[in-house]
């Protein structure tokens, strides 16, 4: 680890201690006994865990452990063969992308899924779509509610743009932006949905140290200021151990461990699965 990396860890640890007064509430989402198969491949088998209101929950595991599959199940892209969800105490047999978005689950993608031909502003505005109430006809005529709504949403989006410090690229088509900024725009779009639960699939993958540091700060700020619950997948163990409240460890589609960073770090099964990653 370089000194800069150590600084990063110190920074986020300070932030973490500052956050200790945060209120962590009851169970927001529970995933129960989820099994997912693709033909003969068992991607997830009997995985259960819960996410509490206001916490930062990490999902870790070696490559192919089923982490991304888990996120895709939570937001309804994949339909598991078995298992169910409990959202705020209410049991849901199935999850669909549209339902997930309506409930307040937003996400980002491992390989960045932005609308490349559209500007940063338009991309973020798509996050407001479910909040828009004006009818098709009103929109077509740019009349009454449609006009007021568009302006109000625009104002909200500007706040997010300020928050994530991307003012300068407001009107740039996102396809032209460098990787790190694209990741930030993706986060902005997810935040525009005012999510209760934010799913982040490797938000720091492929970033340099400075970008990672920024992203860490944004995630912590979002969690703290808006009380947004965060579930993230991340490979950088330093980051995971520092910013998350509890960690789920998957291996070969099975739940290997579940607990605080310290508990997980010292779990012999986790150490075995990672073999060397933890004691570096």
């Amino acid at each position: 680890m370089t000194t800069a990396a150590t600084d990063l860890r110190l920074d986020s640890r300070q932030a973490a201690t500052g956050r200790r007064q945060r209120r962590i509430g009851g169970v927001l989402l529970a995933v129960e006994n989820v099994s997912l198969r693709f033909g003969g491949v068992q991607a997830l088998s009997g995985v259960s865990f819960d996410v509490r209101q206001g916490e930062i929950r990490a999902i870790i595991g070696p490559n192919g452990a089923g982490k991304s599959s888990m996120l895709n199940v939570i937001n309804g892209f994949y339909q598991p063969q078995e298992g169910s969800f409990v959202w705020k105490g209410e049991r849901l047999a199935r999850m669909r992308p549209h339902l997930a978005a309506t409930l307040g689950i937003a996400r980002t993608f491992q390989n960045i899924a932005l609308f490349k031909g559209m500007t940063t502003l338009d991309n973020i505005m798509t996050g407001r779509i479910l909040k828009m109430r004006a009818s098709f006809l009103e929109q077509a005529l740019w009349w009454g509610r449609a006009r007021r709504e568009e302006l109000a949403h625009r104002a909200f989006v500007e706040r997010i743009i300020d928050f994530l410090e991307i003012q300068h690229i407001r009107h740039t088509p996102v396809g032209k932006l460098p990787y790190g900024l694209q990741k930030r725009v993706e986060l902005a779009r997810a935040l525009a949905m005012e999510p209760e639960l934010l799913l982040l699939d490797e938000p720091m993958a492929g970033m340099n140290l400075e970008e990672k540091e920024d992203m860490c700060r944004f995630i912590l700020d979002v969690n703290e200021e808006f009380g947004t619950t965060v579930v993230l997948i991340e490979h950088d163990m330093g980051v995971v151990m520092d910013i998350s409240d509890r960690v789920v460890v998957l291996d070969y589609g099975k739940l290997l461990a579940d607990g605080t960073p310290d508990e997980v770090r010292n779990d012999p099964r986790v150490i075995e699965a990672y073999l060397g990653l933890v004691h570096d």
Partner: protein
Amino acid sequence: METLEHILLQPFRSIAETPMFFLEVLIGGLMSGVMYALVALGFVLIFKASGVFNFAQGAMVLFAALFFVGFLELGWPVWLAVAGSVVVMVALAFAIERVVLRPLVNQPPIILFMATIGITFFLDGFGQTIWGSDVRRLDVGIPTTPLIVGDLYINQFDLFAAVICGLLVTVLALFFQFTPTGRALRAVADDHQAAMSVGIPLNVIWTIVWSVAGLVGLVAGVMWGSKLGVQFNLSLIALKALPVLILGGFTSVPGAIVGGLLVGAGEKVAEVFWGPLVGGAVEDWFAYVLALLFLLVRPQGLFGERIIERV
């Protein structure tokens, strides 16, 4: 030397000598260009909203026209025939979304493209099974007598078509660019998964778009049908829409119009003033050669979204 003079100078000389005649040819060309644009518009709508090149657009034009003319022959009044055809096209959009598109969500565009080829065969066959394959005359009462403005003869029918098309395009362009639904449509075109993750209902969007494309097809079918008669050939005018799209850009509604005007005016002027030099029939290939040149110089078309490649 003499050949060069014939090609490069002679036509311009005759243009300069007969300016009124040139203007007539140009206006005639622009107006038939509007008719091409009408067909191209259907392609653009679906391409924008689903990233799919809809091979079936020509077949949809024919299908809509067949139902319209069929309803008229049953003795229905025009307004009822219009309403009936609209219902048919919207029902078709629902059916296509349910049977073809929904099972293919998240498939690569080439798969969806192949599916639209299947839809083409189905529509061509189905329409003609119901209504037969004879050529039918279609007369919706648009006057065809020429309008005389000063020294110019202008075809009233073409003028009418141009006005309709202009209205249609203005409304669609504004809608796509400036409303939340338009934004949602563009988002779906760009990335299905991302669109779903922000809660855009893919099925609804696709049904809307295919319905609108069906309605544009209906307008095109009625216009072209009045001009050429309703027959199988109508589905082939879609081929003329291809160079229009390459010129204007596959993703731009105004581009479809400008592309249509360029192709229409270009091929008429070329036919009349350059045609005699090569024994005529320039009209048949002019558009395709123009499209080829465009592909070399500006593959995204005049108004298309820039193709951005990061490496």
